[in-house]
Protein backbone atom coordinates (compact mmCIF):
# COMPACT_ATOMS: atom_id res chain seq x y z
CA UNK A 1 0.00 0.00 0.00
CA UNK A 2 2.12 2.88 1.25
CA UNK A 3 -0.57 5.42 0.50
CA UNK A 4 -1.14 8.64 2.36
CA UNK A 5 -4.67 9.69 3.21
CA UNK A 6 -5.33 13.40 3.63
CA UNK A 7 -8.62 14.52 5.14
CA UNK A 8 -9.74 18.12 4.68
CA UNK A 9 -12.49 19.86 6.61
CA UNK A 10 -13.48 22.07 3.69
CA UNK A 11 -14.06 21.31 0.04
CA UNK A 12 -12.09 24.45 -0.90
CA UNK A 13 -8.94 23.18 0.84
CA UNK A 14 -9.33 19.74 -0.73
CA UNK A 15 -9.76 21.38 -4.15
CA UNK A 16 -6.55 23.40 -3.71
CA UNK A 17 -4.62 20.31 -2.60
CA UNK A 18 -5.99 18.35 -5.55
CA UNK A 19 -5.11 21.09 -8.03
CA UNK A 20 -1.52 21.19 -6.76
CA UNK A 21 -1.05 17.41 -6.77
CA UNK A 22 0.31 15.13 -9.46
CA UNK A 23 0.00 11.91 -7.51
CA UNK A 24 -3.36 12.26 -5.75
CA UNK A 25 -6.82 10.83 -6.25
CA UNK A 26 -9.90 12.39 -4.69
CA UNK A 27 -12.10 9.92 -2.83
CA UNK A 28 -15.88 10.33 -2.99
CA UNK A 29 -17.64 7.19 -1.82
CA UNK A 30 -14.57 5.22 -2.86
CA UNK A 31 -16.29 2.38 -4.70
CA UNK A 32 -13.96 2.83 -7.67
CA UNK A 33 -10.97 4.43 -5.94
CA UNK A 34 -10.76 1.62 -3.36
CA UNK A 35 -11.16 -0.97 -6.07
CA UNK A 36 -8.04 0.53 -7.66
CA UNK A 37 -6.24 0.56 -4.29
CA UNK A 38 -7.11 -3.11 -3.70
CA UNK A 39 -5.72 -3.94 -7.14
CA UNK A 40 -2.44 -2.22 -6.30
CA UNK A 41 -2.95 0.67 -8.74
CA UNK A 42 0.33 2.59 -8.72
CA UNK A 43 -0.91 5.68 -10.55
CA UNK A 44 -1.58 7.59 -7.33
CA UNK A 45 0.15 7.71 -3.95
CA UNK A 46 -2.18 10.02 -2.05
CA UNK A 47 -5.89 9.83 -1.35
CA UNK A 48 -7.60 13.15 -0.69
CA UNK A 49 -10.96 13.40 0.97
CA UNK A 50 -13.17 16.13 2.40
CA UNK A 51 -15.58 15.93 5.31
CA UNK A 52 -17.28 19.23 4.39
CA UNK A 53 -21.02 18.91 5.20
CA UNK A 54 -21.78 21.23 2.24
CA UNK A 55 -20.90 18.32 -0.08
CA UNK A 56 -23.87 16.35 1.27
CA UNK A 57 -26.49 19.04 0.77
CA UNK A 58 -29.59 18.88 -1.44
CA UNK A 59 -31.15 22.33 -1.88
CA UNK A 60 -33.71 24.06 -4.07
CA UNK A 61 -32.24 26.97 -6.01
CA UNK A 62 -34.84 28.92 -7.89
CA UNK A 63 -36.21 26.62 -10.55
CA UNK A 64 -33.22 24.31 -10.16
CA UNK A 65 -31.96 21.91 -7.52
CA UNK A 66 -28.41 21.70 -6.26
CA UNK A 67 -27.23 18.20 -5.36
CA UNK A 68 -23.96 18.03 -3.39
CA UNK A 69 -21.20 15.93 -4.96
CA UNK A 70 -21.02 13.84 -1.79
CA UNK A 71 -24.72 12.89 -1.84
CA UNK A 72 -25.07 9.13 -2.21
CA UNK A 73 -27.41 7.15 -4.43
CA UNK A 74 -29.22 5.91 -1.29
CA UNK A 75 -29.77 9.50 -0.16
CA UNK A 76 -31.21 10.42 -3.55
CA UNK A 77 -33.69 7.54 -3.37
CA UNK A 78 -34.80 8.80 0.05
CA UNK A 79 -35.05 12.47 -0.88
CA UNK A 80 -38.49 13.94 -1.47
CA UNK A 81 -37.03 16.78 -3.43
CA UNK A 82 -35.40 14.34 -5.86
CA UNK A 83 -38.20 11.81 -6.31
CA UNK A 84 -37.96 12.08 -10.11
CA UNK A 85 -34.29 11.08 -9.96
CA UNK A 86 -34.82 8.02 -7.74
CA UNK A 87 -35.18 5.52 -10.62
CA UNK A 88 -31.76 6.55 -11.94
CA UNK A 89 -30.11 6.38 -8.51
CA UNK A 90 -31.69 2.99 -7.89
CA UNK A 91 -30.16 1.75 -11.14
CA UNK A 92 -26.64 2.04 -9.69
CA UNK A 93 -25.30 -1.25 -8.28
CA UNK A 94 -26.92 -3.03 -5.32
CA UNK A 95 -27.94 -1.52 -1.97
CA UNK A 96 -24.43 -1.62 -0.47
CA UNK A 97 -22.95 0.18 -3.49
CA UNK A 98 -25.75 2.73 -3.30
CA UNK A 99 -25.04 3.62 0.30
CA UNK A 100 -21.47 4.48 -0.74
CA UNK A 101 -21.58 5.66 -4.38
CA UNK A 102 -21.70 9.45 -4.72
CA UNK A 103 -22.97 11.84 -7.35
CA UNK A 104 -19.47 13.27 -7.86
CA UNK A 105 -17.94 9.83 -8.40
CA UNK A 106 -20.62 8.87 -10.91
CA UNK A 107 -19.60 11.81 -13.11
CA UNK A 108 -16.14 10.30 -13.46
CA UNK A 109 -16.96 6.59 -13.48
CA UNK A 110 -15.63 4.99 -16.64
CA UNK A 111 -17.80 3.04 -19.10
CA UNK A 112 -20.05 1.08 -18.54
CA UNK A 113 -20.79 3.11 -15.42
CA UNK A 114 -22.37 6.53 -15.19
CA UNK A 115 -26.08 5.71 -15.16
CA UNK A 116 -26.95 8.59 -12.85
CA UNK A 117 -24.62 10.90 -14.77
CA UNK A 118 -26.68 10.29 -17.92
CA UNK A 119 -29.81 11.35 -16.02
CA UNK A 120 -28.08 14.49 -14.72
CA UNK A 121 -26.97 15.32 -18.27
CA UNK A 122 -30.53 15.03 -19.59
CA UNK A 123 -31.66 17.36 -16.80
CA UNK A 124 -29.33 20.13 -18.01
CA UNK A 125 -26.82 19.31 -15.28
CA UNK A 126 -24.10 21.81 -14.47
CA UNK A 127 -21.11 20.94 -12.31
CA UNK A 128 -20.25 23.50 -9.64
CA UNK A 129 -16.52 23.73 -8.95
CA UNK A 130 -14.91 24.66 -5.65
CA UNK A 131 -14.22 28.24 -6.80
CA UNK A 132 -17.90 28.71 -7.67
CA UNK A 133 -17.44 28.39 -11.43
CA UNK A 134 -19.95 26.24 -13.28
CA UNK A 135 -19.37 23.88 -16.15
CA UNK A 136 -22.04 22.20 -18.27
CA UNK A 137 -21.82 18.42 -17.91
CA UNK A 138 -21.25 17.99 -21.68
CA UNK A 139 -18.08 20.05 -21.31
CA UNK A 140 -17.01 18.24 -18.17
CA UNK A 141 -17.39 14.88 -19.92
CA UNK A 142 -15.54 16.12 -23.01
CA UNK A 143 -12.59 17.13 -20.80
CA UNK A 144 -12.61 13.90 -18.78
CA UNK A 145 -9.39 11.96 -18.84
CA UNK A 146 -7.40 15.01 -19.98
CA UNK A 147 -5.27 16.23 -17.11
CA UNK A 148 -6.15 16.61 -13.44
CA UNK A 149 -9.87 16.86 -12.89
CA UNK A 150 -10.98 19.78 -10.70
CA UNK A 151 -13.02 18.99 -7.63
CA UNK A 152 -16.75 19.15 -8.25
CA UNK A 153 -18.68 20.30 -5.18
CA UNK A 154 -22.25 19.98 -6.52
CA UNK A 155 -24.33 19.46 -9.62
CA UNK A 156 -27.30 21.70 -10.31
CA UNK A 157 -30.14 20.28 -12.36
CA UNK A 158 -33.45 21.47 -13.73
CA UNK A 159 -36.56 20.50 -11.84
CA UNK A 160 -38.61 18.69 -14.47
CA UNK A 161 -42.35 19.21 -14.74
CA UNK A 162 -44.33 16.35 -13.22
CA UNK A 163 -44.09 13.25 -15.40
CA UNK A 164 -41.71 14.94 -17.85
CA UNK A 165 -38.60 12.99 -16.87
CA UNK A 166 -38.05 9.36 -17.77
CA UNK A 167 -35.19 6.99 -17.14
CA UNK A 168 -34.53 3.41 -18.05
CA UNK A 169 -31.52 1.17 -17.63
CA UNK A 170 -31.12 -1.82 -19.90
CA UNK A 171 -29.16 -4.69 -18.40
CA UNK A 172 -28.99 -8.42 -18.87
CA UNK A 173 -28.98 -9.34 -15.18
CA UNK A 174 -31.80 -7.92 -13.09
CA UNK A 175 -32.09 -6.19 -10.74
CA UNK A 176 -28.38 -5.43 -10.65
CA UNK A 177 -26.53 -5.82 -13.94
CA UNK A 178 -24.27 -3.24 -15.57
CA UNK A 179 -25.65 -1.26 -18.46
CA UNK A 180 -26.11 -2.38 -22.01
CA UNK A 181 -27.31 1.20 -22.15
CA UNK A 182 -29.22 3.65 -20.06
CA UNK A 183 -31.55 6.30 -21.42
CA UNK A 184 -32.66 9.49 -19.72
CA UNK A 185 -35.13 11.88 -21.29
CA UNK A 186 -36.47 15.22 -20.13
CA UNK A 187 -39.51 15.87 -22.29
CA UNK A 188 -41.15 19.21 -21.47
CA UNK A 189 -44.44 19.73 -23.27
CA UNK A 190 -46.25 22.80 -24.40
CA UNK A 191 -49.84 22.35 -25.57
CA UNK A 192 -49.33 18.57 -25.69
CA UNK A 193 -46.27 18.90 -27.95
CA UNK A 194 -42.67 18.38 -26.99
CA UNK A 195 -40.68 21.57 -26.65
CA UNK A 196 -37.00 21.52 -25.69
CA UNK A 197 -36.39 17.77 -25.28
CA UNK A 198 -33.07 16.64 -23.79
CA UNK A 199 -32.18 12.99 -24.26
CA UNK A 200 -28.97 11.36 -22.96
CA UNK A 201 -27.51 7.89 -23.13
CA UNK A 202 -25.20 6.12 -20.73
CA UNK A 203 -22.85 3.29 -21.82
CA UNK A 204 -23.14 4.24 -25.50
CA UNK A 205 -19.80 6.06 -25.65
CA UNK A 206 -16.75 6.64 -23.45
CA UNK A 207 -18.87 9.02 -21.33
CA UNK A 208 -22.59 9.74 -21.03
CA UNK A 209 -23.69 11.75 -24.08
CA UNK A 210 -26.67 13.58 -25.49
CA UNK A 211 -28.29 12.44 -28.71
CA UNK A 212 -29.07 15.68 -30.56
CA UNK A 213 -30.65 13.96 -33.56
CA UNK A 214 -33.16 12.26 -31.32
CA UNK A 215 -33.86 15.52 -29.54
CA UNK A 216 -34.44 17.35 -32.85
CA UNK A 217 -36.71 14.59 -34.13
CA UNK A 218 -38.90 14.92 -31.04
CA UNK A 219 -39.34 18.68 -31.29
CA UNK A 220 -42.98 19.66 -31.77
CA UNK A 221 -44.11 16.03 -31.78
CA UNK A 222 -46.54 14.15 -29.57
CA UNK A 223 -45.69 11.07 -27.54
CA UNK A 224 -47.55 8.47 -29.59
CA UNK A 225 -46.49 5.83 -32.09
CA UNK A 226 -46.52 8.22 -35.06
CA UNK A 227 -44.97 11.10 -33.12
CA UNK A 228 -41.92 9.18 -31.92
CA UNK A 229 -41.20 7.40 -35.21
CA UNK A 230 -38.53 9.79 -36.48
CA UNK A 231 -36.79 9.89 -33.10
CA UNK A 232 -36.73 6.10 -32.89
CA UNK A 233 -35.29 5.91 -36.42
CA UNK A 234 -32.50 8.28 -35.30
CA UNK A 235 -31.83 6.43 -32.03
CA UNK A 236 -28.39 5.10 -32.96
CA UNK A 237 -27.46 7.53 -35.73
CA UNK A 238 -23.85 8.60 -35.65
CA UNK A 239 -23.08 6.59 -32.52
CA UNK A 240 -20.02 4.41 -32.09
CA UNK A 241 -20.79 2.53 -28.87
CA UNK A 242 -18.11 0.60 -26.96
CA UNK A 243 -17.60 -3.17 -27.16
CA UNK A 244 -17.34 -4.97 -23.86
CA UNK A 245 -18.21 -8.20 -22.11
CA UNK A 246 -21.83 -7.10 -21.80
CA UNK A 247 -22.55 -6.23 -25.42
CA UNK A 248 -20.94 -5.67 -28.80
CA UNK A 249 -21.10 -2.28 -30.46
CA UNK A 250 -23.39 -3.83 -33.09
CA UNK A 251 -25.79 -5.07 -30.40
CA UNK A 252 -25.88 -1.73 -28.63
CA UNK A 253 -26.71 0.04 -31.90
CA UNK A 254 -29.31 -2.58 -32.81
CA UNK A 255 -31.24 -2.41 -29.55
CA UNK A 256 -31.07 1.37 -28.99
CA UNK A 257 -34.20 2.08 -31.10
CA UNK A 258 -36.16 -0.64 -29.31
CA UNK A 259 -35.39 0.73 -25.87
CA UNK A 260 -35.81 4.35 -26.86
CA UNK A 261 -39.24 3.52 -28.25
CA UNK A 262 -40.23 1.73 -25.04
CA UNK A 263 -39.09 4.68 -22.98
CA UNK A 264 -40.95 7.22 -25.09
CA UNK A 265 -44.17 5.21 -25.24
CA UNK A 266 -43.78 3.93 -21.68
CA UNK A 267 -44.09 0.34 -22.81
CA UNK A 268 -42.98 -2.51 -20.62
CA UNK A 269 -39.98 -4.63 -21.46
Amino acid at each position, binding site marked *: *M*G*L*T*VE*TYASAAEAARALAAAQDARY*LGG*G*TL*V*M*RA*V*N*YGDQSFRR*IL*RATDPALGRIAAQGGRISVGAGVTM*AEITESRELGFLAPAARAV*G*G*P*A*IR*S*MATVGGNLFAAHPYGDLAAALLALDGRAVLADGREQALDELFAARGRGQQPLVTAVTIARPERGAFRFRKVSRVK*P*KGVSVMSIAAWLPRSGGRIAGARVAYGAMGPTPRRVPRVEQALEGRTLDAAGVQAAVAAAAEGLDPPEDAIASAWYRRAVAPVHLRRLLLEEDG
Partner: protein
Amino acid sequence: MARTPVEFRLNGAEKAVFVEGGANLLDVLRRGLGDMTPKYGCGQGTCGTCTVLVDGRPQLACLTLAETVAGREVRTVAGLPDGAELHPLQDAFMENFAAQCGYCTPGMLMAAAALLERRPDPSREEVVEAISGNICRCTGYEPIIAAILDAAQRRRRRAS
Protein backbone atom coordinates in the same frame (compact mmCIF):
# COMPACT_ATOMS: atom_id res chain seq x y z
CA MET B 1 4.62 4.76 6.40
CA ALA B 2 1.85 6.90 7.80
CA ARG B 3 -0.38 5.24 10.36
CA THR B 4 -3.56 7.01 11.35
CA PRO B 5 -5.55 6.47 14.55
CA VAL B 6 -9.21 5.69 13.90
CA GLU B 7 -11.90 5.31 16.56
CA PHE B 8 -15.32 3.83 15.93
CA ARG B 9 -17.90 1.55 17.53
CA LEU B 10 -17.91 -2.09 16.51
CA ASN B 11 -21.03 -4.01 17.52
CA GLY B 12 -21.56 -1.58 20.37
CA ALA B 13 -17.99 -1.54 21.73
CA GLU B 14 -15.57 1.39 21.37
CA LYS B 15 -12.54 0.49 19.27
CA ALA B 16 -9.35 2.43 18.60
CA VAL B 17 -6.94 1.20 15.95
CA PHE B 18 -4.02 2.46 13.91
CA VAL B 19 -4.58 1.99 10.21
CA GLU B 20 -2.12 2.05 7.35
CA GLY B 21 -2.70 4.51 4.54
CA GLY B 22 -5.20 3.09 2.08
CA ALA B 23 -6.28 0.21 4.36
CA ASN B 24 -9.87 -0.89 3.86
CA LEU B 25 -12.36 -1.58 6.63
CA LEU B 26 -12.40 -5.31 5.94
CA ASP B 27 -8.66 -5.63 6.66
CA VAL B 28 -9.03 -3.54 9.79
CA LEU B 29 -11.90 -5.70 11.07
CA ARG B 30 -10.25 -9.02 10.29
CA ARG B 31 -6.55 -8.44 10.85
CA GLY B 32 -6.68 -5.44 13.14
CA LEU B 33 -9.58 -6.38 15.40
CA GLY B 34 -9.91 -10.14 14.90
CA ASP B 35 -13.54 -10.05 13.80
CA MET B 36 -13.47 -12.79 11.17
CA THR B 37 -17.22 -12.72 10.44
CA PRO B 38 -17.03 -10.46 7.38
CA LYS B 39 -15.37 -12.47 4.61
CA TYR B 40 -12.95 -11.47 1.89
CA GLY B 41 -14.36 -12.54 -1.48
CA CYS B 42 -13.52 -10.52 -4.56
CA GLY B 43 -11.99 -7.32 -3.19
CA GLN B 44 -13.87 -5.32 -5.80
CA GLY B 45 -17.38 -4.94 -4.42
CA THR B 46 -18.95 -7.48 -6.72
CA CYS B 47 -19.60 -10.47 -4.45
CA GLY B 48 -21.00 -8.80 -1.33
CA THR B 49 -19.68 -11.25 1.26
CA CYS B 50 -17.87 -8.43 3.13
CA THR B 51 -21.13 -6.48 3.61
CA VAL B 52 -21.30 -4.77 7.01
CA LEU B 53 -23.59 -2.06 8.36
CA VAL B 54 -22.23 1.44 8.85
CA ASP B 55 -24.70 3.59 10.77
CA GLY B 56 -27.36 1.08 9.79
CA ARG B 57 -26.67 1.11 6.06
CA PRO B 58 -25.12 -1.79 4.18
CA GLN B 59 -21.61 -1.10 2.89
CA LEU B 60 -18.92 -3.18 1.27
CA ALA B 61 -16.13 -3.32 3.84
CA CYS B 62 -13.55 -4.11 1.13
CA LEU B 63 -14.30 -0.81 -0.63
CA THR B 64 -14.62 1.28 2.53
CA LEU B 65 -11.54 3.36 3.32
CA ALA B 66 -10.94 2.67 7.02
CA GLU B 67 -10.69 6.37 7.94
CA THR B 68 -14.23 6.99 6.73
CA VAL B 69 -15.83 5.07 9.61
CA ALA B 70 -14.25 7.30 12.28
CA GLY B 71 -16.91 8.14 14.86
CA ARG B 72 -19.45 5.82 13.29
CA GLU B 73 -21.13 2.56 14.25
CA VAL B 74 -20.05 -0.58 12.41
CA ARG B 75 -21.98 -3.83 12.74
CA THR B 76 -21.01 -7.32 11.61
CA VAL B 77 -22.47 -10.80 12.02
CA ALA B 78 -20.54 -11.06 15.31
CA GLY B 79 -22.99 -8.48 16.66
CA LEU B 80 -26.19 -10.14 15.45
CA PRO B 81 -26.87 -12.63 18.28
CA ASP B 82 -28.30 -11.38 21.55
CA GLY B 83 -26.03 -13.18 24.01
CA ALA B 84 -26.60 -16.91 23.51
CA GLU B 85 -29.72 -16.30 21.46
CA LEU B 86 -29.22 -16.27 17.73
CA HIS B 87 -30.73 -13.50 15.63
CA PRO B 88 -34.01 -14.53 13.92
CA LEU B 89 -32.17 -14.30 10.59
CA GLN B 90 -29.59 -16.83 11.77
CA ASP B 91 -32.27 -19.25 12.97
CA ALA B 92 -34.20 -18.86 9.75
CA PHE B 93 -31.08 -19.37 7.61
CA MET B 94 -30.36 -22.66 9.41
CA GLU B 95 -33.88 -23.98 9.25
CA ASN B 96 -34.43 -23.02 5.61
CA PHE B 97 -31.09 -24.49 4.49
CA ALA B 98 -30.07 -21.07 3.26
CA ALA B 99 -26.35 -21.83 3.68
CA GLN B 100 -24.47 -24.49 1.78
CA CYS B 101 -20.77 -23.67 1.53
CA GLY B 102 -21.53 -20.69 3.76
CA TYR B 103 -19.13 -18.24 2.21
CA CYS B 104 -21.77 -15.72 1.12
CA THR B 105 -23.75 -16.11 4.36
CA PRO B 106 -22.28 -13.25 6.42
CA GLY B 107 -22.92 -10.78 3.62
CA MET B 108 -26.42 -12.14 3.03
CA LEU B 109 -27.19 -11.85 6.75
CA MET B 110 -26.05 -8.26 6.97
CA ALA B 111 -27.80 -7.22 3.75
CA ALA B 112 -30.96 -8.85 5.11
CA ALA B 113 -30.53 -7.25 8.55
CA ALA B 114 -30.32 -3.82 6.88
CA LEU B 115 -33.56 -4.57 5.04
CA LEU B 116 -35.52 -5.86 8.05
CA GLU B 117 -34.54 -2.90 10.19
CA ARG B 118 -36.06 -0.56 7.61
CA ARG B 119 -38.84 -2.78 6.34
CA PRO B 120 -40.02 -5.24 9.02
CA ASP B 121 -42.56 -6.73 6.60
CA PRO B 122 -40.84 -6.78 3.21
CA SER B 123 -42.28 -8.13 -0.02
CA ARG B 124 -40.47 -10.85 -1.93
CA GLU B 125 -39.38 -8.22 -4.49
CA GLU B 126 -37.87 -6.12 -1.73
CA VAL B 127 -35.94 -9.13 -0.45
CA VAL B 128 -34.61 -9.89 -3.93
CA GLU B 129 -33.58 -6.26 -4.32
CA ALA B 130 -31.92 -6.20 -0.87
CA ILE B 131 -29.63 -9.12 -1.69
CA SER B 132 -29.06 -8.17 -5.33
CA GLY B 133 -25.48 -7.14 -4.55
CA ASN B 134 -24.68 -10.50 -2.93
CA ILE B 135 -23.62 -13.49 -4.97
CA CYS B 136 -24.35 -17.08 -3.93
CA ARG B 137 -22.99 -19.89 -6.10
CA CYS B 138 -24.64 -22.79 -4.21
CA THR B 139 -28.23 -22.30 -3.26
CA GLY B 140 -29.84 -20.74 -6.30
CA TYR B 141 -31.05 -18.00 -3.92
CA GLU B 142 -34.51 -19.44 -3.30
CA PRO B 143 -33.77 -20.82 0.20
CA ILE B 144 -32.12 -17.51 1.10
CA ILE B 145 -35.16 -15.51 -0.02
CA ALA B 146 -37.42 -17.92 1.89
CA ALA B 147 -35.24 -17.60 5.00
CA ILE B 148 -35.34 -13.80 4.97
CA LEU B 149 -39.13 -13.77 4.59
CA ASP B 150 -39.34 -16.33 7.41
CA ALA B 151 -37.01 -14.26 9.59
CA ALA B 152 -39.21 -11.22 9.09
CA GLN B 153 -42.13 -13.19 10.54
CA ARG B 154 -40.03 -14.51 13.43
CA ARG B 155 -38.87 -10.99 14.26
CA ARG B 156 -42.40 -9.68 14.27
CA ARG B 157 -43.49 -12.58 16.50
CA ARG B 158 -40.64 -11.95 18.91
CA ALA B 159 -41.44 -8.25 19.04
CA SER B 160 -45.15 -8.81 19.78
